């Protein structure tokens, strides 16, 4: 079953001087409990897609479905609260401790009680952040902040994780480590994940399906099914099939070195 479906979604931003066709006829479908990546160069509108799904912005035209519920003018609170949004920068609130940051979504939604508190402890444990739970963000390293950002996205036990280049600002080593940790968490909690990235290898490593996008106007070039078994680890990187996907997607996007575009 498809958890999330977008049908012919268009997004047009109008400013005084120009009209920007940010997204053109985007149709995607995300099967339940799978990881689907959207990869493409900067400015192709891939982040816009998950902002549409999370209803932070509204599409100019087209339909969005989550659990077969079609988005109307007013999208139901319960639908949006099925999702956890994970930002490119950790986006933690500097006046809160790490624990307070992670439980922040629970406070907003009104989840109270022992069960939710214990879940935060569990998340801190998963992220190996228990020891620094009472520190403020300014006292922590970039990798720790990013992990905390991911955990905050999971605080309300969302069925869907929308991850907006969550590890894009980190170095390769740290990124791959966090990718694997994310896969680990996913195996335990089984969310449906949309993963935005500009890194082709990361996209292939994580997902069962990759949408390749291009820019001006932002549109989908191709849908690539990644036929590699889970659980995955870094040995997959040398698998000929993996290398094949990597090369194919990279050449689809062009001769550009995507890691340098940012």
């Amino acid at each position, binding site marked *: 079953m498809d958890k999330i479906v977008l049908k012919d979604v268009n997004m047009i931003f109008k400013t005084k001087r120009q009209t920007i066709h940010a997204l053109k006829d985007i149709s995607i479908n995300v099967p339940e409990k799978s990881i689907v990546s959207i990869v493409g160069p900067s400015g192709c509108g891939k982040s816009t897609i998950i*902002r549409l799904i*999370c*209803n*932070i912005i509204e599409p100019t035209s087209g339909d969005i479905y989550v659990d077969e519920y079609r988005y109307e003018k007013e999208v139901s*609170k319960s639908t*949006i*609260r099925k*999702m*956890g*949004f994970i*930002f490119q*920068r950790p*986006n933690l*609130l*500097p*006046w809160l401790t790490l624990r307070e940051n992670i439980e*922040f*979504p629970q*406070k*907003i*939604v009104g989840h109270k009680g022992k069960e939710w508190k214990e879940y935060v402890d569990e998340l801190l444990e998963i992220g190996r952040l228990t020891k620094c739970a009472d520190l*403020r963000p*300014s*006292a922590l390293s970039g990798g720790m902040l990013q992990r905390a950002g991911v955990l905050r996205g999971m605080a*309300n036990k969302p069925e869907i994780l*929308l991850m907006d280049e969550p590890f894009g600002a980190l170095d390769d080593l740290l990124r791959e480590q966090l990718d694997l940790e994310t896969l680990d968490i996913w195996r335990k909690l089984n969310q449906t994940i949309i993963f935005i990235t500009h890194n082709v290898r990361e996209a292939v490593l994580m997902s069962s399906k990759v949408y390749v996008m291009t820019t001006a106007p932002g549109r989908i070039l191709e849908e690539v099914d990644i036929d590699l078994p889970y659980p995955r680890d870094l040995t997959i990187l040398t698998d000929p099939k993996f290398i094949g996907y990597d090369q194919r997607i990279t050449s689809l996007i062009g001769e550009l070195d995507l890691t340098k575009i940012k």
Partner: protein
Amino acid sequence: MAEKNVTRRALGIMAPILVFVLVLGLFEFLVVTLEMPTWLISKPSDTFKTLVANFSDIWPNTLITIEEILIGYVIGVTTGIVLALIFTSNRFLDKAISPYVIFLIVTPQIIMVPLLMLWMGFGIKVKILAVALSSFPINMMSTMTGVRSVSADRYELMKSLRATKLQTFFKVLIPSALPNVFTGMRLATIFATTSAVGAELISGNIGVGPQIAYHTEFMMVDISFAYVYVMLFISVMFYMLINGIESLVLRGR
């Protein structure tokens, strides 16, 4: 290691005190060696003696000035924050008001004192109002900057959680803007002390300002100097008080 820290800390406290003592010493030394007349300048030792001897006269005047500063400041800063929140709550209002905020800041509000006197008399109310008037614009501007510079990411976080407007206001907007609010509050202390003394000089004969003017007129320079020291003390203490509250509230950020 711990010992080293203690010495470093002691040095951090001692060094400025040492400079203070040195400057006073140099002042004293120059006045004595250059044989400056006592009706022109008062050396620190004389000033301190005068300060102690005339404390019963100096204290009530000081208290009045402090009162004007504190009450006026609290009114001014509160008004500044409230106005800033109102003006930034609406895009049109923000656009309409913004260009004029700078007028309020660069115009010395003290020019209003003679008119205020005409309307309100010579009492302490005029000075409180003058202090409030001059301390609110800078705080308002700084708060507006703070509210406007809350990062879009933080609003998106709240949107993705379907937070209410009130939650966004209290849990994100206010804490995000706080550093700027405090910057405004710190700057406002300078405006407040300046305009308190200024307003006193224009109207009435009580408070630190008029006392300095009065005693200088009669060549009682030591008393004038005593008041100058008092004012110095008040201003520094006031600034440090706000600074202290700031580092307490923003601790750990």
